Structures are given as C-alpha cells and as structure tokens.
C-alpha cells in the first residue's frame, strides 16, 4: 500500500488530519467540562479512528498507531469500562498536540522514522501512566485488569457492546437480539466485517498488523455494507488499489505455496515441530496475515475473513501444536488453495469448501487441546463444543464463532509479552521491509516491450547508418581513383608541357612573348608562361585534394569506431531489456501444485508433484502460454494416467504417485520433462481408437512411438468418460498448439505400466527462431527451420513431377511460387532458375503432413524475430508473419502448414475477386540493373528509371554488376562498355555462360557509336544498343520492348 502513497496523497492526508485537530481539541474541552457527554466522545472517537485509518493507509504508520492508542482508550471510555478522568483528557490532549507537531514536521519534510516513533512512545507512555494511576486509585471491576487497555483483549460479551457502539456511531438502530433469520443473512457480510472490526479494536493485533507494513482497515464502509449487502467489488474498490493488492497477493501466495511445498516433501509422517519448521510456519502465517490485513483495507471481505480463520489455525500450529503431520500440511494446503481462489475471484462461491476447511482446522485444534488438557486452554474444549453447536445451527457465521474460540484462547494466554511488543520493542521487520521495498520497481510489461521495440528501431537505424558508411567508403575509393588519375595527368602535364613552355628551353620561337623574354634572364621566375602557372596551381590543388581525402578517411574511421561502440552498447541494452522479461519457473509452479492437489482431491488419489529447476528464468510469455497446457497435462495425468490407490497397492507401487516436472536449459533450448509413474499409455486402446478414427492410415503397422504421436491429434481422446477435469478429446491437441505457439515441439514417451513422459522443447527466445532464408519466384521468404526435416540437392528431373520420392516415400511437391502466384523471372519456369545446378529441395514436416518444397535459391540461414502483419492484415494466405531485416526491409515468413494443407485450385479465405485482381498485381515493378563506372551517369539513369516507376539497382563496374545480378536477379540490365575490373563485353560473355542469367535482357548504353561495337555486342548476346546521351522516349521504348 505504501507504494501508492505518493507525495500528493501525503499532503492531502496531512491537510485532512490538521482539519480534525481543532475539532478534537474542542471535543476534549467539552469533555473536560462534561465527562458524560457520550455524543462528543463518539465524535472524538470517530475523528481519531479516521486519522488512524487514513494515516496507516498512506504509510504514516507511527501516526496511525498513535491514533490507534487514543482510539482504544476512547473505545473503553465509551464502553463504560474506563472512566474519563482529567488525566485521561490530558493524555488525549497531549496526543492531539503531538499529532499536530508531527504533521508540521511532515509538512516541512523533516519528519523521519525517529520522530514518529518518539510520538508513538510518548503517547503510549502517557496513557500507560494514566491507566496505572487509575488502577492504583480505583478498586473498580474495570481497573482490576490494568493491562487490558494495552493487551486489547476483550472480555467475553464485549463484542455485543461494541456492536452497539458501531451501530450507534453509524447511525444504525440497535437490532433486537431476536432478529429474523433473513435479517441475519442480510447482515452476513456485515458480520464478516465485524470480525475485522474486532481486530481493529484489538490493539495487540493491530500493532502486529502494522509490524508487517500493512495499512489499517478503514471502517467507514461498514454502515454501507449493512444497507447494501452485496456491493460489486469491482465498482467499490479503487482499481489502483486493487491492482496493488493483486500484486501483493501474488507474492504472498507464492511464498505460502513454496513453503507448503517444502513442507509437503519433508513431512511424510508425524514429526515434532522444530525451530526450522516453526520458521516455515511463521513465514506462512506472516503471509496469510499480511494478505488478510491488505484485503480488509481494500474491502475484500471474503479474503479477509478466510485469512483470519486460516491465520488462527496457523497461530495455533505455530504457538501451541507440538507436532506436524502430513494431514495438517494437507489442511494447510486446502486453506492456501481457498485463499488463492477467493483472492483471485472474491465473489467465487466456495462456501462448502470454506466450511469444510474451517471444520478441519477446528478438528485439529480440538483434538490437540483434547489430548493436552494441561496447557493453558482449559476453556477451549467447551468453547469448541459451543462453537460447533453454533456452526450446526447457523452456518452463516462460522468465522465469528471460531474466532470467539480462538480469542478465548488468546484471552487466557494474554500476557505481558504482547504489551512489551507494543510498547517497548522496536519493530525491526517493518523497517526491513521498507528497506527492501526500495530495491525493486514494478514496471508494466507493455512498457518493457515498447522499450524492446525501440531498441529494435535503434538497431535498424544503426544498420542503415552502416549502409551509408559502406556507400561512403566506396565513394572515397572512387574519389581515390579520380585523384590518382588527376595526379597522373598533372605529372604528364609537368613532364610534357611545362618545360616546353619555358621559351628558351622549349623553343617556342617567333611569338611575341619570345621577343619579350629575350630581355630577361632564363632563371627569372616571371618568364614562366601562364600554362606553367596553371600547371603549378593544378599541382597545388591536387595536393590539397590529397590532404582533404586523408582527412575524410580519418573522419570516416572515427565514425566507424563510434558506430562499433554504439553497436556494442546497443547489444548490451537489448540484452538487458530482454532479461527484464525473464521470470523464474516458480511463478508458474504455484499454479501447477494447486492443479495437482485439486485433481488429486477430486479423484481421491494420492499424488505429489515434484518440480525441479524452479529457479530457471524464462520469458514471462513462455510461462503464461505454458500454464494452460501444463495444467491440462497434470489434470490428465492424475485423472487418467495414475492408477487408483487400490490398484497401485495391488501392483506394488507406492500409494502416493509422483509427477515430476524437470525444467532445464540446454544451450539455446529450454527443455521441460513431465513424467508420471502411472500406468502409461494404453497402446492397444490407441490403436483401436485410431483404426476407428483414421480409416486411411495404416494403424496396424504403426510403432508404439507413432501411435503415441496420435494423441496430439485434434479430437483424439482415449477416455471413455468425460469428467470435469479431462476426457473431452480436446486436450492434447490444445497442448500441442500451445507449445507450437512458442515455436516449440512436444514428444511423448511411454512404456506400458511404467508411466508417461512428455518432453517439451522450446527455443529460449520465444519471438526469435532460426529460419531458412529462401527465394521463390523472385520474392524472398523465411521458412521456419522447425518445419524442415531435411534439405537436399537433387537432380532437376526429381522436381519436375508432382511428387518427390524420398527413400520410397512419396511426398507431394509444393511450389510456393505457383500457389502464391508469384512472378517469375522472364522465361524462367518456376523453381528451376538454378538451371544446370542441382536444385535445392526443403523437405518439410508440420506434424500432420509432409511435403517437398523446391526453392529457387537458398540465401542462407537466419535468426528471425517474428512480427505479425499489423492491425489490418490479419489473415494473408500462406504467410504467418514477417521479420524485419537489419536494413529495415521486411521478409514474409512462410506458413508451411497452410501450404501443405491447401486444397488444390481453391484459395483459402480470399474470394475470387482477389484472385482476379492478382493477375494485375503480377505486373510487378521492373528491376533494372545499371552498370556504369561514371557516378553521374549512374545517378541520371537511376533517377530516370525510378521516375518511370521501375526499380533501379546500380553497379559501379563489371565485377560489381555480376554480384548484383546474382543477388537481385534484375529483370533487365543496362551495361556500359568501358568499365574498370571487367568491361561490358566481358560481363555479357559471363552472362551468356550461365544459363540462369542468359535470358536476362541486356542493353548496352555507351558513347562508342561505331558499328563494330554494336556488332560485337550483338554477338555476345546484347538485345539492344543505345548511344549516350540517350533520348528518354527511345530508352523507355526499348526497355518496354525488352522486358
């Protein structure tokens, strides 16, 4: 609760408290004059109570406790058990002043723990002094119990009086004792709250509550509950508080579950409770206690009431019971299950279970107290009897009756320990919890996901920058080349012309200059001609360019280093963000234990669940998706897999069956092994059922392993009876589906009579999985590797049929490009562009079907991150999702299952209209490769081509062109003749030599217009020839003709 106490709330609280203080002082003044004014006392009580509740709620626990002390005193005064002496009024005035000062300090931001503690201690001391004085002075009945105030123990019968007070305070008329039954039921929720109210009146318990960092119940809703017996929880509870409560609940339920599971495995027979066990019990009790308190504050009365009852039992177990038996542990498990159920759904109707578990608790306590009559519980037996009688008479009030018994125990056991607990001892645990709270921060998973998404974007941007750097590098290299050329030209100029230009050396005679220069000495500089000067300037410019080039190269290197560092940091950030999503298996273990217990209880079987590897951390999504399949498997195991207790006895197995779940991480895989020691799969029954269900299958020839695989088929259930738990035939296929959702596999192994073992294998990262990067019909796709069982190179003839033969098995040949009506390169038959090379075939198995998919090209293997197709396209045939490449481009992920299950000639999901329109779509954008060593020509051509709506691909020379052709398979190539490394003719030759590229139309674009070049080009396979500069229309017409 402290989590939500923000500054604003704190300021509001202080304002509210300050608002009450003058009024309280007035009340005290009035009471000083008229000590019998009950109305004023009631008013004072109300304000004190409100301060107590509000302060505790926002985390000012010391203030809450201080108010609680004063409230307790007022309770007793109103109740008539204590007189309102001037000393008492003084103590109360002192409290009001103390609270006022404390509020001032909080406002100034100076209030610390010590100050609050001091206020509390002072107030307690004041009241103690007053009560001691009163005890010494008086001989009245009330003062005979001087510590009553602080022990907070009510005498028998006080409850009724307190009810009166509450009724009075809330303006309710006092109900006559003989109210009708329906009225009782109307007030049943009231009574539950009443129990809690009693708690608040019990100062000892209150203080203990506060000790574990709990807010104190606000009793204001009390009168409303009386008038409206069934308020909708969702409506009445602040959603923020409810969310907080749920989080807190999960933590505590988890703790309870872990501790109880520990006890389940250690307590196999009755054992003495030693310190270590007591510590476990203490931890369970604390969690239950905290939950109860939190539920009461929030207003979830059912949880608070059951928590209270459960806690009483745990109190007895911790404080008074000497032994712990497996039955008691079972009872605790029942209690914890109920708590979990009502905590997750407070409106759940489980009255029978609650009554059953409550009775069980009482039975243990009464048995125990019956055998140990010498202990302090001499009143317990008859009280329990009373309580049992009451139970049978009115089942609506079991908690109250039980609580009475428990409180009576407490009454007799009340001692100074409790007082010292309140007054003297510091509250170390609360401080500890406060400190621990700072170490963690709760964050919405969607925020983490958003961060991960942004991290992905950063990676894409970085990759884009990397591409720009690569372009810059080639640009610098090109610049280098040009610079070298320029240097050569300059040195040629120097050698060839500079010297010649000097008149007397070069022999430039007869010119005017010659005449003039004769008057000068040849060594004089100004004899140089303008050409000499220009050559010098050119030299200088070249030298400058050289330095600029070096400088640029330096900058580029520095960018590269920065980029590498950035990449490192980004990787680290993404790793860390990925880890944030990781939670341990423990988060799921709790639910699995509960499912097993419930199933065991329902079937009357004795089953224990052992979980190994609970600390294993995995993505939260894995645990969430696995929860249902695992629970289903456990229910199946208990219901069908495990023999009845008698059967187990007969065959010599231990009566208590064991289901073991082992979680392991093996490299990049997460392996879950779920094994039971039941009767195993009944293969003859599976065979029989399969023969009936799948008439086309050769069931008789199937091995046990193959038969076992059938249980994952839809609608396959062996159970002849349908129970609430399992046997509806919708089971194992759902399990398989859940596992597949996580890109995992499930396997089953069984030996008759020896149990079943399921092995689930999942990739560690859910969203990421390995895939083959392939190309069909000119488009790139990812094929998840989990669907592929073999990749083969085969002879071209092997795929020119409808079926592919693999070791005698005929697999249907699936041609995605045809099925998806993708465009193929001109003249290239589907899936055979690899030509003379042996085509690659992916052999796929999706569990239900197998097939062979020839691919045009296998581009490699990638780890891909799955993304869905957005909010608009939820159902695109044959495509399950998409992955984002490093450069931000998208590659669709093939849905192999859809491809294998397609009905020939009929398109799934999309109507005929779509198919017709696809014909138009087939006219895809032309991709045109431009190979030219001139950057300007490349730019002009690329702009021109994209201006026509085509896709340009540029290559800087012949070798680059060949690489780009391989990577991109352009629809058309525009080639320059003169290019470095490999000229245009050589490229043509090379293309002709490779059947895969022979058919790509090639067009020569050159400034060489002589016929011999045209002829040569035609001979080498060029389909067109255009002279530079080209005419737009001419080029467009030619491209259209060729493509």
């Amino acid at each position, binding site marked *: 609760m402290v989590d939500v106490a923000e500054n604003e709330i704190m300021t509001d609280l202080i304002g509210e408290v300050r608002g009450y203080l003058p009024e309280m002082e007035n009340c005290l003044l009035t009471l000083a004059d008229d000590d019998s004014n009950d109305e004023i006392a009631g008013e004072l009580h109300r304000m004190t109570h409100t301060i107590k509740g509000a302060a505790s709620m926002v985390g000012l626990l010391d203030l809450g406790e201080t108010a609680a002390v004063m409230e307790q005193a007022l309770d007793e005064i109103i109740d008539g058990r204590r007189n309102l002496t001037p000393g008492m009024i003084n103590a109360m005035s002192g409290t009001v002043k103390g609270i006022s000062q404390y509020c001032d300090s909080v406002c100034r931001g100076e209030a610390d723990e010590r100050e609050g503690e001091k206020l509390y201690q002072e107030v307690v001391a004041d009241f103690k002094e007053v009560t001691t004085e009163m005890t010494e002075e008086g001989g009245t009945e009330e003062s005979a119990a001087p510590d009553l105030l602080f022990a907070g123990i009510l005498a028998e019968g006080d409850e009724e009086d307190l009810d009166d007070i509450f009724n009075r305070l809330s303006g309710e008329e006092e109900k006559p004792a003989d109210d009708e039954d329906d009225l009782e039921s109307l007030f049943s929720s009231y009574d539950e709250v009443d129990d809690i109210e009693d708690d608040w009146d019990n100062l000892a318990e209150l203080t203990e509550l506060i000790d574990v960092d709990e807010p104190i119940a606000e009793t204001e809703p009390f009168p409303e509950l009386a008038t409206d017996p069934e308020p909708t929880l969702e409506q009445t509870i602040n959603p923020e508080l409810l969310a907080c409560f749920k989080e807190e609940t999960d933590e505590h339920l988890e703790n309870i579950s872990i501790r109880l599971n520990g006890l389940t495995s250690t307590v196999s027979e009755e054992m003495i409770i030693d310190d270590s066990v007591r510590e476990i019990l203490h931890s369970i009790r604390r969690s239950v206690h905290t939950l109860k308190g939190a539920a009461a504050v929030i207003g979830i009365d059912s949880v608070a009431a059951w928590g209270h009852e459960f806690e009483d039992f745990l109190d007895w177990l911790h404080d008074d019971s000497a032994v712990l038996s497996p039955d008691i542990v079972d009872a605790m498990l029942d209690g914890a299950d109920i708590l979990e159920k009502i905590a997750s759904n407070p409106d759940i109707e489980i009255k029978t279970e609650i009554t059953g578990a409550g009775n069980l608790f009482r039975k243990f306590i009464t048995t125990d107290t019956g055998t140990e009559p010498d202990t302090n519980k001499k009143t317990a037996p008859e009280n329990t009897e009373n309580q049992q009688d009451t139970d049978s008479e009115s089942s609506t009030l079991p908690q109250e009756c039980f609580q009475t018994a428990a409180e009576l125990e407490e009454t007799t056991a009340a001692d100074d320990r409790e007082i010292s607990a309140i007054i003297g001892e510091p509250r170390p645990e609360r401080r500890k919890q406060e400190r621990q709270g700072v170490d963690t921060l709760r964050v919405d998973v969607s925020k983490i996901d958003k961060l991960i998404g942004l991290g992905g974007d950063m990676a894409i941007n970085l990759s884009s920058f990397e591409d720009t750097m690569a372009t810059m590098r080639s640009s610098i290299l090109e610049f280098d080349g040009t610079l070298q050329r320029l240097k050569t030209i300059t040195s040629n100029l120097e050698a060839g012309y500079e010297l010649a230009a000097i008149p007397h050396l070069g022999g430039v005679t007869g010119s005017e200059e010659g005449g003039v220069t004769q008057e000068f000495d040849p060594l004089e500089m100004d004899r140089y001609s303008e050409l000499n000067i220009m050559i010098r300037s050119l030299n200088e410019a070249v030298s400058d360019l050289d330095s600029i080039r070096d400088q640029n190269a330096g900058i580029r290197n520095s960018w590269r280093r920065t980029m590498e560092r950035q990449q490192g940091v980004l990787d680290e950030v993404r790793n860390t963000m990925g880890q944030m999503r990781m939670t341990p298996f423990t988060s799921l273990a709790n639910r699995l234990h509960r499912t097993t217990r419930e199933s065991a209880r329902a079937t009357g079987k004795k089953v224990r669940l052992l979980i190994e590897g609970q600390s294993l951390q995995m993505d939260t999504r894995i645990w969430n998706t696995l929860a249902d399949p695992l629970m289903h498997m456990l229910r199946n195991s208990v219901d069908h897999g495990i023999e009845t207790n008698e059967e187990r006895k007969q065959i010599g197995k231990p009566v208590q069956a064991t289901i073991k779940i082992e979680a392991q991480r093996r490299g990049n895989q997460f392996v879950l092994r779920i094994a039971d020691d039941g009767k195993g799969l009944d293969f003859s029954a599976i065979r029989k059922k399969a023969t009936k269900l799948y008439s086309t299958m050769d069931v008789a020839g199937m091995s046990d392993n193959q038969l076992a695989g059938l249980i994952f088929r839809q609608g396959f259930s062996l159970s002849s009876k349908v129970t609430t738990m399992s046997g509806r035939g919708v089971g194992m296929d759902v399990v398989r589906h859940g596992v597949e959702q996580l890109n995992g596999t499930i396997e089953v192994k069984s030996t008759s009579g020896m149990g079943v073992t399921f092995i689930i294998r999942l990739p560690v990262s859910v969203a990421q999985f390995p895939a083959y990067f392939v190309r069909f019909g000119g488009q790139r796709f990812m094929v998840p590797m989990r669907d592929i069982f073999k990749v083969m190179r085969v002879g071209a003839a092997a795929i020119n049929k409808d079926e592919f033969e693999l070791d005698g098995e005929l697999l249907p040949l699936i041609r995605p490009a045809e099925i998806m009506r993708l465009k193929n390169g001109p003249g290239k038959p589907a899936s055979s562009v690899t030509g003379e090379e042996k085509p690659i075939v992916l052999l796929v198995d999706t569990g239900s079907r197998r097939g062979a998919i020839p691919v045009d090209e296998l581009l490699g293997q990638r780890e891909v991150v799955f993304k869905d197709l957005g909010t608009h396209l939820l159902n695109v045939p*044959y495509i399950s999702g998409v992955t984002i490449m490093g450069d931000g481009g998208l590659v669709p992920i093939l849905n192999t299952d859809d491809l294998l299950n397609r009905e020939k000639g009929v398109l799934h999901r999309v109507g005929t209209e779509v198919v017709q329109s696809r014909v138009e779509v087939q006219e895809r954008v032309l991709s045109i490769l431009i190979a030219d060593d001139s950057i300007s020509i490349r730019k002009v051509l690329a702009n021109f081509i994209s201006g026509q709506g085509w896709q340009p691909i540029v290559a800087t020379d012949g070798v680059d062109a060949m690489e780009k052709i391989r990577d991109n398979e352009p629809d058309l190539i525009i080639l320059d003749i003169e290019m470095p490394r490999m000229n245009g003719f050589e490229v043509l030759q090379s293309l002709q030599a490779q059947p895969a590229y022979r058919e790509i139309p090639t067009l020569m674009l050159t400034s060489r217009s002589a016929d011999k070049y045209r002829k040569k080009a035609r001979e080498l396979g060029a389909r067109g020839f255009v002279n530079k500069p080209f005419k737009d229309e001419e080029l467009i017409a030619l491209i259209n003709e060729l493509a």
Partner: protein
Amino acid sequence: MNNSIAHTDMKTGGHDLRNGGQPSLPELIAAIDHEIAEVLKLQPATNPHPDRAEEQKSLGRHICVNLAGQHLALSLSTILEAGELQGVEELPLLPDWLRGITNIRGEIISVVDLGLFLGIKDKKSRTGEPFLIVRDGETKTALIVDKILGTRPLYQAATKNGNLDDHTDEAGEYHSGLATYKEGEGEKTITLFNINALISSARFRELKK
C-alpha cells in the same frame, strides 16, 4: 536510408500552408506532423478562428490531398502521421489496391493505394509518393495519395443541396459532404473524405477476417 519512411523533423515551424508558395513534400510533411500533434493534444478540434465560426460552422483543420485530379479533405483527427513511401513488401494473393506492408519504426502497417481502392486510378503508385497513416479504432493503415496539398481550416459549405460534387464513381460512397476554405479573396470548395467509412467498409476489412 533504406528504412521505409523518410521522416522529417517534426519541429519544423511555419506550417500555414493555406495559400501561396509551393512547399516541398518534406516541408509539408513536417508541418502536417506538427499539426497532427497539435490536434491530438487539443481533441476535440478547436476552432482557430472563432469570429468566422459565427458566420460559418467550422469543421476544424483538415489535410487536403490530390488523388487522380480530385481534391479531398481528410480530418486531421484520423491521421497519425504523413511520410514518403519508401519500401513496401508485397504479400501474395492480395487485391491490387493492397500494396503490401511497410515498416514504420518497427511497426508493421499495411499500405493501401487509395486511388486503386477507389477505382479512380489505374496505375500503381511509385516509391517516393506521399502517404498518410490513418487510424480507425484498432486498425491502422497507410494510404498512398498523389499529392499532399497542405492543411486548411475548413467550413461547412453554404450550399446544402446534398449533391456531393459531381462524383458518381465508387469514391463517392466515402464522401461525407462538401466544405469550403479561403483562398486569396475567394472561397473554394473541397470534398470531405470519410476515413472511418473507408476503414469500416466490407472490402477494406476483408483481410481482417
């Protein structure tokens, strides 16, 4: 940059594009982004010229686009951002108006060629053309248009004879009326395009099934 969208700086100021000047597409987009951000902040749209509202009912600022020669106005409140079409990945067996998907800062969004969808264009749009990302409820999509003209404050057209322009084609069913805007001294009429009707149409939703 190989990434799909060429985005511009949202903070570029000076976005009154009502008349005069021919701002470049990046400038326009920046200005529009800015305005979208403002509209989202000020939902529901407030009237920037209250005095005029007395004479004519203000419809708030709209983004005006050109599509196959038609001028259409789209409410700024349905538009999330504007950009230039860069990389679109085609998907198999989709209708021609559904160009495929694009990656916008890690989010996958479908790309719809509005002209082809409405049947008022027969040639596919090219790389570099402007698009608007629109949203209706959960569905987000990028609509390719021919040209983004700018944003203008629109007013209810005075003529209420119900004749929505002279459109008789399919596009007409997504028109929700006429509006006027000031240009120079005179007033011009523009057709209001209803994004919600588009996104909720059966044809558009076909692939959501």
